[in-house]
């Protein structure tokens, strides 16, 4: 497991000065390219490319969903190269790597020493992949490319800046214990090491009697990790937060799996043209922290829009056509007649007017002698246009609530 070693030091030793300069230039370029691509969230589906480059996310989501999406091929390709050229991605491409290197250098200059003992990376990989086999890739969101993408949530919703929290933590850690991230903690780096290790193992086995002996410590660690991952995944998956179920963007897979598969890259938050996606800040449980949730305070989910689904790298949001999106409702509106203006006999037709599917009618109640909004659940897609339009303050009289069991899901 030599590749767990200090990455920077190792590469500095093997590279010539000229190569080092070229490598530095390439890394800067890829950092700039990644930033530009992520900022183009609203205009294109390119932002999916950044987190999709990660073989860790690709394999994690593949194991969890058992579905191969087109963009996962990118990650699998990177993984294949990692088998032949160890840590190639880290040294040439990783945009977070450059940021972490800078933080590490600063840390060293301030006299901080790298930590030598603790290597959480392999545990993260083991726990996550074991969880993924059960449909719940526990710590997939610690992928560096997801962490890097998440930092650009600042351009999305009002609370989007909180998505930058993981990046901040990674950089702080790197400052305090220089190089701990790339060398010992990064699951993507560790995963590449595992891949190259496996490749080497396969090669040597083909060439003759294995020089690499059975390593009981490694085996024990693997079994322990897989068991722990499976147990933790099962626990987290079944843990229900006490509050109401969160409203997820369209195309979201079912709830416990969503929390696991979502990598918190913030792509959907940035891509949403109506700014209705925001990161969960813990009121849907710790397991759902920073996952995307919907709010319809001012706007709603546009009928023809599929942008959030197009930029999801992990398959947490399944790509649906606008027609299929309508068939999988986000939620259903509930009317609170204690706030509704119609209950006071007042003239209000906002929710009915703005419903794009004509799913709301006002039924006359002879007993109350007022109108009562009625929702046709066959027509309603839960887009939230009614909630956005509702003029009552401070509480809206019509609110979209997540459905207990998703239709067709």
């Amino acid at each position: 497991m030599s590749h767990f070693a200090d990455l920077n030091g190792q590469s500095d030793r093997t590279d010539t000065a000229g190569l080092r300069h070229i490598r530095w230039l390439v890394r800067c370029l890829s950092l700039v390219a990644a930033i530009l691509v992520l900022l183009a969230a609203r205009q294109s589906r390119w932002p999916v490319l950044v987190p999709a480059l990660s073989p860790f996310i690709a394999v994690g989501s593949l194991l969890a969903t058992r579905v191969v999406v087109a963009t996962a091929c990118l990650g699998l390709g990177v993984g294949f190269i990692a088998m032949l050229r160890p840590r190639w991605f880290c040294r040439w491409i990783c945009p977070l790597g450059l940021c972490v290197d800078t933080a590490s250098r600063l840390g060293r200059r301030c006299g901080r020493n790298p930590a030598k003992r603790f290597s959480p990376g392999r545990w993260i990989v083991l726990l996550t992949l074991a969880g993924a086999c059960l449909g719940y890739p526990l710590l997939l969101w610690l992928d560096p490319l997801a962490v890097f993408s998440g930092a650009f949530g600042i351009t999305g919703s009002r609370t989007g800046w909180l998505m930058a929290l993981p990046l901040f933590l990674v950089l702080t850690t790197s400052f305090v214990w220089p190089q701990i991230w790339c060398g010992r903690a990064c699951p993507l780096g560790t995963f590449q090491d595992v891949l190259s290790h496996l490749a080497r193992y396969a090669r040597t086995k083909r060439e003759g009697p294995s020089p690499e002996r059975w390593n009981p410590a490694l085996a024990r660690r693997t079994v322990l990790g897989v068991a722990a991952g499976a147990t933790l995944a099962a626990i987290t998956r079944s843990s229900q937060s006490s509050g109401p179920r969160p409203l997820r963007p369209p195309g979201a897979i079912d709830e416990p799996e969503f929390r696991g598969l979502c990598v918190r890259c913030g792509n959907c938050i940035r891509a949403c043209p109506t700014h209705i996606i925001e990161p969960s800040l813990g009121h849907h449980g710790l397991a759902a922290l920073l996952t995307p949730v919907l709010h319809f305070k001012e706007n709603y989910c546009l009928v023809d829009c599929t942008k959030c689904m197009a930029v999801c790298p992990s398959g947490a949001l399944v790509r649906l056509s606008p027609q299929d999106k309508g068939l999988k409702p986000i939620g259903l509106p509930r009317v609170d007649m204690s706030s509704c203006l119609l209950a006071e006999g007042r003239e209000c037709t906002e929710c009915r007017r703005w419903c794009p599917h004509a799913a709301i009618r006002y039924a006359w109640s002879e007993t109350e002698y007022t109108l009562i909004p009625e929702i046709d659940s066959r027509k309603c897609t839960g887009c939230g246009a009614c909630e956005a339009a509702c003029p009552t303050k401070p509480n809206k009289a019509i609110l979209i609530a997540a459905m207990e069991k998703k239709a067709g899901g």
Partner: protein
Amino acid sequence: MDKHMNRRECLTAIGLSGLTAGLGLTGAPASHAQGVGESSGFQSSVIDAHNVQDTRTAATIVDGKVIQPQRELPILHQTDVLVVGGGSAGVVAAIAARRAGASVTLVERYGHFGGLWTGGLVVLIIGHIVKGGKQVCQGIGEEMMRRLDKLDGAIIDRRPGVNPTVDAEAAKYMMVEMIEEAGIDVFLHCWGVDAIVTENTVRGVVFESKSGRQAILARTVVDATGDGDLFAAAGAEFEHRSHNVGLVSRIGNLDRVDAEKARQAPKPKHLGSATPVPGVNWVNLTGPEVDGLDIATLTRMEMNHRKFIWNNVQRTRQTPGYEKVYLVETAPQLGVRITRVLNGLNRVRLSDLRNATKFPDVVGVGGSSAATHGEWQIPYGALVPTKVDNILAAGRCISVDMGMADLVRLVPNCFVTGHAAGVAAAVAVKDNCRPRDVDIAKVQKILRQQEAYLG
């Protein structure tokens, strides 16, 4: 005998006018008709109002069918612009057309002006303001608000961004004042029942009153009946819709509610909101969605709503603290919201509100009920029928899709469409053209001169 001859002449002239497309029917459009018998062209045929009963012929039964015999109708009056319906749209249309230089006649079915605004007690002027606090209803509608402001205590709330509430009696008085100042010929208690049409061109209106069935000839007619009675009679295309039919009431003594006792029980329902009159609230009632043109339905609505309102006030009086509350009045007019809607050359559409569409032929800008969205433009084409000429729609019956009908019918938006129809009708008379051919730039210029807001 002499009289008969003259009437025949008159009918020939009507036919002729069809051929000449309204050329010079009243000679000088700018001079407003001085009253019965004095306008040019048909003086001798205008019948003394007291003698009109003579012309009546009773209906009869022929082969088991009730038959109305063919008869000649007396011509009561003639005018450049005839506005049928003295509601919020009709009154503004009449004033606008008169100020634009046409002679104007206003025919109203009830004995007061304002229609549902005053007679229906729709006293909250919702839609005056749009999101961001901008007031889109300007021009004559705003002049009415300013005049009501001057009538002390008529308007309680005109803070920027807040829709005004008015007193219906003050509004009725204010409109009498404005119509007299403008010099408009008025016939109250006249129900416009038929259009006079030759070759798809409207030449005037037949109306029914205590004086019997009579005709008024006009070069352009503005249908501000709310139900589109006249464009329907003239053969224009329209949609017939159902909407909620309710009845507004006012309750009094709310300033004498015992707050201490009132805390004992839940607050009664249907208490409404404040009016400019101290202690008096106006209580809205939406009612079920029904056909507002069906007389059996209208009868049922009147009776049911009146029973409910009375019983509800009695329930309120049994609530601790509310014993002194009483029913001041139920509105004289039933709250019919939408019935017939014109199929116009253009249409006010929800998609255009969504896209904030700008129309080259914009003649008004509308607002929303709760200031929840921005302003929306009203294209002139929404007032003009596709097939019939010399008639314009104003008020809630203009060409509008389902999504916008609830905005178009609001009082300020009726002011705005009335203003546009009045000016356009006057321009059509002045330029001697069909309303569909009017010079839009000219209409817009006059509207702006009359301080209308066109975006």
